[in-house]
C-alpha cells in the first residue's frame, strides 16, 4: 500500500451536539464539497482540500456572538495541520 495512491484529506471530528449542528452548517456554507458522516457520539467532517471555520458564518447560523476559541468545546480530534487560528477564522490543511 503506497502512500501516493491514497486520497489526501483533512478532517475534524466533533461531538454530536446542538452546537456542532450549527458549526457543521457554517462549515458546509464555507467549504463546498465537505463530506459529513457519523459514528456513535461523533460527527466527522472531511474535505479533500482545506477546512475553514469562519466566525462570521458561525455567528450568522447561531444568532449570537461566537469566539473562535469556543471551537475547543466541540472538537474531539482532527487530521491535518492547524494552519491559522485567529479571531476571525480557523484553517485546517496540510502544508506540504
Amino acid at each position, binding site marked *: *500500500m503506497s*502512500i501516493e495512491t*491514497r*486520497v*489526501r*484529506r*483533512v*478532517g475534524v*471530528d466533533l*461531538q454530536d451536539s446542538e452546537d456542532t449542528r450549527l458549526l457543521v452548517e457554517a462549515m458546509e456554507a464555507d467549504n463546498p464539497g465537505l463530506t459529513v458522516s457519523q*459514528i*456513535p*457520539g*461523533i460527527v466527522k467532517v472531511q474535505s479533500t482540500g482545506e477546512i475553514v471555520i469562519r466566525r462570521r458564518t458561525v455567528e450568522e447560523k447561531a444568532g449570537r456572538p461566537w469566539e*473562535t*476559541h*469556543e471551537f*475547543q*468545546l*466541540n*472538537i*474531539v*480530534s*482532527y*487530521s*491535518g*495541520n*492547524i*494552519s*491559522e*487560528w*485567529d*479571531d476571525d477564522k480557523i484553517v485546517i490543511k*496540510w*502544508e*506540504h
Partner: protein
Amino acid sequence: MAKLSMRERYSLLTRDLDWTPTYVDPKEVYPYTRYEGIKIHDWDAWEDPFRLTVDSYCKYQAEKDKKLYAVIESFAQGQGHLSLTDARYLNSLKLFIQGVTPLEYAAHRHFGFLARHLDGPGPRFAALCQSMDELRHTQTEVHTLGQYNKYYDGLHNWPQMFDRVWYLSVPRSFIDDAMTAGPFEFLTSVSFAFEYLLTNLLFVPFMSGASFNGDLATMTFGFSAQSDESRHMTLGLGSLKFMLEQDEDNVPIIQGWLDKWFWRAYRVLGLVASMMDYMLPQPVMSWKEGFELYFEDQMLGGLFPDLEFYGIRPPLHVEAAIAEKDVVSHQIYWLLYQYCFGTAFTATVPDTAHLDWLSEQYPDTFDRHYRPLWDKARGIQQDGGRFFNLALPQLCQVCQIPVAFTEPGDPTRLSHRSSVHEGERYNLCSDGCQWIFEREPEKYRQAWLPVHQIYQGNCGGAALPDVIAWSGVRPGDGGEYLGSPDHVNWERWHAAGTAASGL
C-alpha cells in the same frame, strides 16, 4: 480601551513576560536541552496555533468541567450504572482506569517538568497547559469511574495495580521509557507518536464504545478530555516541525525516535485493539477498520506526505503493523482470556452474535484461525470447565507483552526473536521490538519484567494467589465473567427491575 486581538494577547503573555538571564548562564538555567544532540537556534520560532492564554484557558476549561460534572450528578441520581448494555462492558472501563488514567497522571508530572525546563516561553506555556489538562483528565476519570466503583469490581486499586500487575507493565514500561528519555525525545514519544499519530485509536474507540453501550458518563469525560487532546495533538505536531525546521542535523535523530516510538506506542495499543473487538457487548468498529481509518488513511495518507518535505519517511515496521491488523486483537484477547485468573478484569467467550460480527469484520482470518479456538473454549466451559494457562509466559523485553504474536503474513508461525547483549540472551516478540532493544540494550536490559520478577521471588510469594494478592487484585476482580460477582449482581439487579434495585 480596545480589546486586544488573540495574536497580541498571546504575544504579550508568552513573549513579553520572558527574560534572558544575564547573571546566570542560560545553560545552567536550562540544563537538559542540549545533551540529546537536538540543535535549537531560535526558540521564538515556536508558535502555538491555538494562541491560548491563561484567561481563555481557565474560561473554557471551567466550562468543560461544568458540563461534565452536571452529567456525573445526573448519572448518580438516575442509577446510570444500570443502563449499560451489559456488565461485561465494565471490562473496558477497568482497563481504562488501570492502564490509561495512570498515563495521564504521569504525563501531568512530566509536562510540568517541561514547563520548567524548555528554553522557550512559548513551548513552556504550552507544556504548562498540557500538564494542567492531564491532571484534570486524571481527576475527571477518577470521579466518573468512581461512580461505577460503588457497584462493580476491579476499579478500586488502580495505582497499585499499575505498578504491580503483569499486563499493566505494558503501558507502564512505555511511559517510564518516555519519562527517562530527554525532553526532546519525550516530546517525540508522548506528544507526537502517542498524542498525534495514534491518539485517535485510543480515545475515539473508548468514547464511541461508551456512547454505543449506554455509558453516558464515560462518553462525557472522554469528550471533555478529548477536547484538550486536539491541543495536545497540535503541540505534538508543532514540536516535531519546530525541531525539524531548526537544524538539518535534527532530522536523523528525530527519524530514529519516530521509528522507535511508533512501534512502542503501537504495541501498547494492542490492548485497545482487544478491547475494541472483544470487550464491548455492542461493538462500534473493529480494530482493523479503526486502524485503516485513523492510521492508514489519516496518518500515512495525510501526515507523512507533509513530513516528507522535511526529509522524514514513515516509521520503520509500519508494514508489519499493517500486516498485523487482521490478527493482533485476536491474539491479545486470547492471551487475556487464558491468563485472566491474574487480571483485574474478567474475560469470557464472545456470544454467537459477537463471533458472527468478528467473522464479518475479519473475513480472511477469523473463521480460519480464531473462531475454532473460541468454539473449543466454549465447549470446555459448557462441560463445566474453563481453560486457564497456568504456565507463566515469556514476556518481550521491550513491549512486555507475552511473546505470542505470529510472523507477519503467516498467522500459523510464532514470531520469536532473541538478542545477546554482554553474554545474556533477551527475548523479543517482533522485529520492531528487537530493533528497539538493539538500539539501546543498556536501557532495556533494566526492564522490570513481571514474570521474571515473580520467579525471582519479588512479587509477594511463590504461589499464584500470593502474587495476585500482592498485586492488589482481589478475588472477583478477574477470572471468568460468567458467574463472577459483576455478572451475578447485574442479573439480580435487572431481574428485580431498576425500581426495586434498592442499592
